[in-house]
């Protein structure tokens, strides 16, 4: 039998749902903070002006820049095509889809039903078959009907229960595998949110952008080796491939940003660091989605393979009797009354 499903999933939030939501809100605040620093530090804004405010939405920023700079900020926004405080507004929504809809109660109920079916089938083994064999032996029943009954029904029934139990094990195994994937995807999303948060905090504290290579290495390590995907599976390979590709893309984007957006002389944070970090986060989430899809496809492929084997056996008159009891017409094969001369 397959292992027991993970318990304590905490309803539709799943085991990490609320942590994902909370961390995503922190990421939003920090991204806005860092972005505000990047845009406003040449007006004398410092870390203390943006950090720990708890509200870095657009209205709050406009209120805090004051009348002196509001016009200048609006003009800069107009010219460069952005709106401070609203650029990262979708972050909570992006993470929400990983935070909710992770109720595993249905998995657990289905697994309990199937496990019960497997246990019932165990009872159909020797405990029930032995008395039948014994009675038939005692009855001294022989002839064509007896042969048909023994060859097509009784003997193959030894395999019917175990074969049906194997299918049950496949089904419960798939439920387990998918439940593990749900939890792993949540863990992956939480890791990404946490690492993004840490990268933003580090950039704000150091007044310097983290090296993109370092950040991607951290996220890649968390995704690929954080017990989320088993090395050797499609999901694992896909994660690595995507991260390698995105790392190169990010480095290019980072270089381009530094080149095209020269900062004021007194700026301590170069380039569009907040966007770069959030871009890294988005790539990591894309990699996570791709890995999840690959794992799901693999789970489905295994089930399809078992189903195909099952169907092939059922289609064969000789083999189907080992998956379900054979349909026989013993009465047609029974000896006619003219064959009898005496019964002792």
């Amino acid at each position, binding site marked *: 039998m397959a292992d027991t499903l993970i318990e304590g999933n905490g309803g539709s939030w799943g085991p990490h749902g609320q942590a994902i939501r909370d961390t995503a809100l922190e990421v939003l605040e920090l991204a806005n903070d860092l972005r505000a620093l990047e845009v406003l530090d040449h007006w004398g804004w410092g870390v203390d002006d943006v950090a720990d405010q708890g509200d870095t939405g657009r209205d709050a920023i406009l209120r805090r820049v004051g009348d002196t700079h509001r016009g200048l900020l609006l003009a800069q926004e107009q010219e460069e095509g952005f709106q401070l405080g609203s650029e990262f507004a979708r972050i909570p929504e992006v993470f929400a889809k990983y935070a909710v*809809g992770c109720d595993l109660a249905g998995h657990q109920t289905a697994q309990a039903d*199937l496990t019960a079916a497997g246990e019932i089938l165990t009872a159909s083994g020797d405990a029930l078959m032995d008395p039948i064999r014994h009675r038939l032996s005692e009855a001294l029943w022989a002839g064509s009907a007896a042969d048909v009954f023994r060859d097509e029904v009784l003997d193959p029934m030894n395999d019917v229960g175990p074969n049906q139990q194997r299918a049950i094990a496949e089904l419960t195994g798939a439920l387990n595998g998918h439940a593990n994937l749900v939890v792993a995807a949540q863990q992956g999303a939480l890791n990404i949110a946490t690492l993004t948060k840490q990268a933003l905090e580090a950039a704000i504290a150091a007044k310097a952008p983290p090296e993109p290579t370092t950040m991607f290495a951290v996220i890649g390590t968390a995704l690929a080796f954080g017990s989320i995907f088993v090395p050797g599976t499609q999901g694992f390979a896909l994660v690595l491939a995507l991260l390698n590709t995105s790392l190169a893309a990010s480095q290019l984007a980072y270089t381009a940003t530094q080149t095209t957006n020269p900062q004021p002389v007194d700026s301590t944070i170069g380039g569009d660091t907040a966007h770069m970090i959030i871009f890294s986060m988005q790539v990591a989430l894309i990699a996570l989605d791709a890995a999840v899809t690959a794992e799901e496809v693999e789970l489905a492929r295994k089930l399809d393979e078992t189903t195909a084997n099952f169907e092939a056996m059922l289609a064969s008159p000789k083999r189907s009797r080992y998956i379900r009891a054979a349909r026989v017409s013993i009465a047609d094969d029974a000896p006619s009354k003219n064959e009898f001369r005496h*019964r002792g």
Partner: protein
Amino acid sequence: MRKDGDGGGVELRVDLEELAEVGMVLLPGLANVHGDAARQIHLSSRNDHMILRTPGSGGERSSPVLASWKALRDLLQQAAGDTTVNLGDASKGLLRVVEMYGGADIENQELVDVPVPPVPGAPLPPEAYRPGED
């Protein structure tokens, strides 16, 4: 079982009570067990609408695993159900065999009980002679 009879012919010996017990009690019992298993497998479908949702979809998309999982589950349920029905038919078949054995016995017994008609020219059996009737 075929066995040499005293007269050099072949006779069939079957214990109908044993055979009847298999057909009336033991095989239906086995069929019931598989019926219970089929019902339990069917029960697992009650949460089909909420299981196997794609992670990262907020529970809105069903996973591609769901269709494959249901296909195998339904096939298994069908096999378990067929096993129940077919074992039930097999038990009926056995009872039909018992019936036919029983019918043959009665007919054979009647044949034994009917006096053998005289063959022309053959001597009459001893019971044909009654003292005082000559």
